[in-house]
């Protein structure tokens, strides 16, 4: 009975925390650019504002596609978020759910006839083909090195990266994939705000856009917590300390993988991004897989 109450409380609180992290990220970006920046509750305020707006959709919207896309997008961010914070669930399942979130974005974009949304969907699809394979490599190498397929089994007395130095390979892969998966500036080609007006989300507004924005924030927090859990946090940490350590490390990760990256680079073109993800992270993934396979033969 107690566990259900925990799940309900987490299900209500973690989306708010995700929006807060989005606000912190915007504040950090502003400080890097020498601006004052919005209050850290700004993303939450945007969410509240979008709920109060009336919805105006084009007449020929495919509502079935729109709703299924939004549900997939939400589920692909919300369920992984709960899974990683409760340290329960299967890594392979987590991988599939997070790919499902990308599928939701594609379905949402395809519900409209706007050329911007079609261009956005096309680019999002190309990006997904380019980076998801590296994400899968990262998860597979992690499972091979640590030998745990579920999140609760990944228990180590010390920091995983120090106990298994080979985890550095998937960790670097994750750092490459994180900006693309969250969709921030150098590689947010599918949702380019200033270029194709948020791509797949160009025609939706009001509460539908609120769900899309919330899903994006939750995806960011879930990915950061997954990196924290798999590589940085000792499993012996429990209780209040677990939450404090998670949130602090997540904040540091958001700063280094999202804020710094988006301020250091401008948006690249889709062919450049696909070429990059199909060479560097993929090569690291393949070489890493071979190394890990050989090392396992020597009993490491």
């Amino acid at each position, binding site marked *: 009975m107690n566990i259900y109450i925990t799940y309900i409380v987490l299900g209500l609180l973690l989306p708010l925390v995700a929006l807060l992290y989005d606000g912190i990220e915007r504040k950090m970006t502003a400080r890097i650019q020498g601006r004052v920046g919005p209050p850290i509750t700004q993303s939450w305020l945007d969410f509240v504002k979008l709920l109060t707006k*009336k919805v105006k959709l084009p007449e020929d919207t495919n509502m079935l596609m729109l709703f299924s896309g939004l549900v997939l997008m939400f589920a692909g961010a919300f369920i992984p978020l709960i899974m990683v914070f409760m340290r329960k669930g299967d890594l392979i399942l987590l991988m599939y759910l997070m790919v499902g979130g990308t599928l939701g974005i594609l379905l949402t974009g395809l519900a409209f006839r706007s050329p911007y949304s079609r261009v956005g969907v096309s680019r999002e699809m190309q990006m997904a083909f380019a980076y998801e394979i590296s994400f899968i490599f990262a998860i597979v190498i992690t499972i091979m090195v640590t030998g745990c397929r579920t999140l609760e089994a990944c228990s180590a007395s010390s920091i995983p990266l120090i106990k298994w130095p080979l985890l550095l390979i998937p960790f670097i892969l994750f750092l490459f994939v994180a900006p693309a998966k969250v969709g921030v500036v150098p590689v947010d080609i599918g949702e380019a705000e200033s270029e194709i007006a948020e791509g797949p989300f160009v025609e939706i507004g009001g509460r539908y856009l609120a769900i899309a924005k919330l899903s994006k924030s939750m995806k960011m927090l879930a990915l950061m917590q997954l990196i924290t859990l798999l590589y940085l946090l000792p499993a012996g940490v429990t209780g209040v300390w677990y939450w404090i350590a998670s949130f602090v490390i997540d904040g540091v990760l958001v700063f280094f993988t999202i804020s710094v990256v988006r301020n250091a680079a401008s948006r690249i073109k889709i062919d450049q991004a696909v070429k990059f993800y199909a060479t560097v992270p993929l090569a690291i993934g393949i070489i890493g897989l071979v190394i890990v396979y050989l090392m396992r033969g020597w009993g490491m």
Partner: protein
Amino acid sequence: MSLWSLLFDPENSIWVYRINAGSCNGCEIEITPLFTPRYDAERFGIKWVGTPRHADVVLVTGPVTAVAKESVMEVLSQVPDPHVVIAVGSCGVSGGVFRGSYALEGPLDNLYPVDLYVLGCPPKPEGILTALLEAKKILKAKRKGQYQEKPLVVDPAGMVMGR
């Protein structure tokens, strides 16, 4: 700001969309600095969006030319309620030096209800920022259904007239 307004006030989030209805681009050059470190409109929760369907506030620059009229009206019809329309610059307010020309269908308030006018050719960023902050109050009144249609005028230095 109080804790309530930091947490639950929808007026603290304003997304702005801009329409060029035949402007000479002078007003656009003055709008752009709003989002630079010097004026930093994002500290008030003002954000730039690329599509009218996400917008709360629409800035219209330029006298509405005959060619631009159809597109302007279609874009304005896509903005969800509640929204505020701001006419920016002398041309947006009155037609400016082009008033009476055969090529004009505007100024904008002949075609669509305008809530705020920003004077100046071009207006200063201070004036546009003041207009955006005034738009917060208008949006609040519109959400409560208490809005009286009494347009305000913002002069180039950022003074609000007509209250």
